[in-house]
C-alpha cells in the first residue's frame, strides 16, 4: 500500500477514530476518581469482598472449563464427524444468547420444579443466590472462549508429532501428556485468560441468578443506581486495575515460556 493514496488515509483515520472510541471513555473513567477516594474505596470491606468474589468465581469457571473443555477441544481439533459443525455451533451459543436470557435459562433448570433442580436441592446445593450459582453462570458464558482458543491451539499441532510418538512406543495417554499438552500449554493459558476475562465481565446473567453474594459488576451497578456515577467509578477502577494486572502477569508468564521453547 503506497502511503500517498487516499485509501491509506481512510484506513488510518478509521483506525484513529476506533482507538479514540475505545480509549477515551476508559481513560476518562480511570482518571475521574481522586486518589483519596480510591484509597477510601479499597478500605471498604464490601468492595474488597466483591472484587475477590468476582476474581475467584471467574477463576473457578476457568478451571472447570480447563478440566472439561480441554478433552472436548482436543476431540474437535483432531476428528472429523458428521454433526461436528452442529457441536461447534452449540458451543458458541452462550456467546450469542443475551445475558439475562442465560440467567433465566439456568434458573429454569436449577429451580425446584425441574428434576435437576430437585436433585440439587436434595443434595443441599443451592444455585439461586449462591456462589455455586455464580460459578455455574460464569462457566456457562466463559466456556466457549476456552474451548475455541484451545481447539485452535490443538489444531496448530501436527498430528504427525503424535503419530511419531505412538510409533516410538508411547500410548495415547503418554503421547498427550508428553507431546500434545506441553505444546498446547500456551493456548490453554490464553484460553484461561479469555474465559476468565469474559466471566469477570458478566453482569446480566449473574444479576438474575445471584444478586447476592455481590460480585463486583453487580456492586458497581448497585452503587450507580443508589448513589450515582461518582460512587460507582472507584469500584470500577479497582476492578479494571486488578483484572488488567492479573492478565498482564499471566501474559508475561506465557511469553517467557515461549522464549524458552
Amino acid at each position: 500500500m503506497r502511503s500517498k493514496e487516499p485509501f491509506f488515509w481512510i484506513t488510518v483515520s478509521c483506525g484513529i477514530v476506533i482507538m479514540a472510541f475505545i480509549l477515551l471513555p476508559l481513560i476518562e473513567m480511570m482518571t475521574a476518581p481522586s486518589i483519596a477516594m480510591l484509597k477510601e474505596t479499597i478500605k471498604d470491606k464490601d468492595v474488597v469482598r466483591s472484587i475477590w468474589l468476582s476474581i475467584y468465581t471467574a477463576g473457578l469457571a476457568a478451571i472447570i472449563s480447563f478440566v472439561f473443555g480441554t478433552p472436548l477441544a482436543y476431540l474437535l481439533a483432531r476428528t472429523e464427524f458428521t454433526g461436528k459443525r452442529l457441536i461447534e455451533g452449540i458451543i458458541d451459543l452462550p456467546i450469542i444468547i443475551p445475558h439475562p436470557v442465560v440467567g433465566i435459562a439456568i434458573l429454569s433448570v436449577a429451580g425446584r420444579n425441574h428434576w435437576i433442580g430437585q436433585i440439587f436441592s436434595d443434595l443441599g446445593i443451592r444455585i439461586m443466590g449462591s456462589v455455586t450459582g455464580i460459578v455455574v453462570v460464569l462457566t456457562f458464558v466463559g466456556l466457549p472462549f476456552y474451548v475455541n482458543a484451545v481447539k485452535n491451539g490443538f489444531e496448530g499441532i501436527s498430528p504427525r508429532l503424535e503419530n511419531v510418538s505412538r510409533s516410538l512406543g508411547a500410548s495415547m495417554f503418554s503421547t498427550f501428556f508428553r507431546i500434545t499438552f506441553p505444546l498446547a500449554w500456551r493456548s490453554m493459558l490464553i484460553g484461561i485468560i479469555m474465559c476468565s476475562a469474559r466471566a469477570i465481565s458478566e453482569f446480566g446473567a449473574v444479576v438474575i441468578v445471584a444478586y447476592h453474594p455481590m460480585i463486583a459488576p453487580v456492586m458497581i451497578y448497585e452503587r450507580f443506581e443508589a448513589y450515582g456515577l461518582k460512587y460507582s467509578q472507584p469500584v470500577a477502577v479497582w476492578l479494571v486495575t486488578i483484572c488488567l494486572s492479573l492478565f498482564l502477569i499471566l501474559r508475561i508468564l506465557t511469553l517467557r515460556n515461549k522464549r524458552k521453547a
Partner: protein
Amino acid sequence: MIKIENLNIHLNEFTLRDINLSIKENEFFILMGPTGAGKTVLLEAIAGLIPVKSGTIFIQGRDVTKLPPEKRGISIVYQDYCLFPHMTVLENIKYGLHFHKLDNTLAEKRFDQLVGVLDVSHLLKRLPANLSGGELQRVAMARALMVNPRVLLLDEPLSALDPGFRSDLRSGLKRLHNSSNITFLMVTHDFAEALSLADRAAVMNHGKIEQEGTMEGIFKRPHSTFVANFVGMKNLFAARFLGTTALIENLKFELGRSPVNSHGYIAIRPEDIVLSTEKLTSTMRNSFIGRVNAIFDQGFYYEVDVIVEDVTFKSLITKNALFEMSIHEGIDLFLSFKATAIHHF
C-alpha cells in the same frame, strides 16, 4: 516380513483399494507414485496410525491389523521430520526409551553408535528449530532407530532437502540399511531415487498398486501405461500386433518376437532412440525418417521431438550431439532403435 492382504481404506478424501503387497525381511522396499496416490496413507496404515476398513496386515507372520501403533515395533520418519519442538535433540533421540525396557548400557551403546553414524553428536543440546533440513533428517533417523524397530517407514525423507545434499543422504540411507537388520519401506515420487536405493518396489496410483517387483522389472517392463509414463518411457503408443511386428497407424515396427495379444501398447525409452543425419547402416532393425518438431533444453540433455507420419517420437541427446548434427526445428532426421528397445504390453 510385511504382508498386506486385500487392504481397503476409506479416509476422508483418500481411498485405498485392494492393496496386496509383500515385503521381505531386511529388504529396502520403495513405494513410488505421484502426489496423492495414497503412499503416505499406506505407510500410516502399516504403522497403525489410521483405521483400516478391511483386509489384513501381517508383520513377521503376526496379524497386527488390530494392534495399536505402539505395539507394532514400526518406526516412522516423515517428510517434515516431525521432531518434537519442545525437546532438545538429545531428548528427541532418547524419547522412545521411556517406553522400551532396555538395559542401560545397551541403550547407551546404541545411542553412541547412532549419534556417531548419523553425525549428530554436536547437535545434542540444540532445539529442532535451530537445525538445518539435513540435520533434522538425521536426528529423525536416529530417534526412529533408537528403539530398534523391526521396520522403518520413511515418508519421502529426502524430498525436502537441497538437491546437493540429497545424494549424500541417499548413500547414508543405503549404508544404514546395509549395516542393520531392519526392513526399510520408503515412499518417494522420485524415480531416480528409487533406482539407486531399492531392492524391490511398487508403483501406486489412485489408491491402487499398479505394479510390484524388482526395480529392473518395473523400469524395463512396465505393466501399464501409467507405470511406463512414470518410469520415463516417454514414447508410449497404442499399437496393433501382427506376427513379430507392431503397427501404429501405418508405421511398422519390428519387435523380433510375437506378442500374444493383438492390441496393446509399445513403449520406447527416449534415450534408446538414436538420431542421425544419414541413414545408419547398423543392426538396428527400426529406422525411420522424420522432421524435427521441437527441441527442449533439459539441462544436460536436449529432448528432440521428431514427427514421423503424425507419430511424435521423443529422443534424448547430449548438447554436443545437438550442435554436431546442427539439429534445429524443421530439418529431417533419421531415428533408429533396436527391436529389443521396444517394450510391449
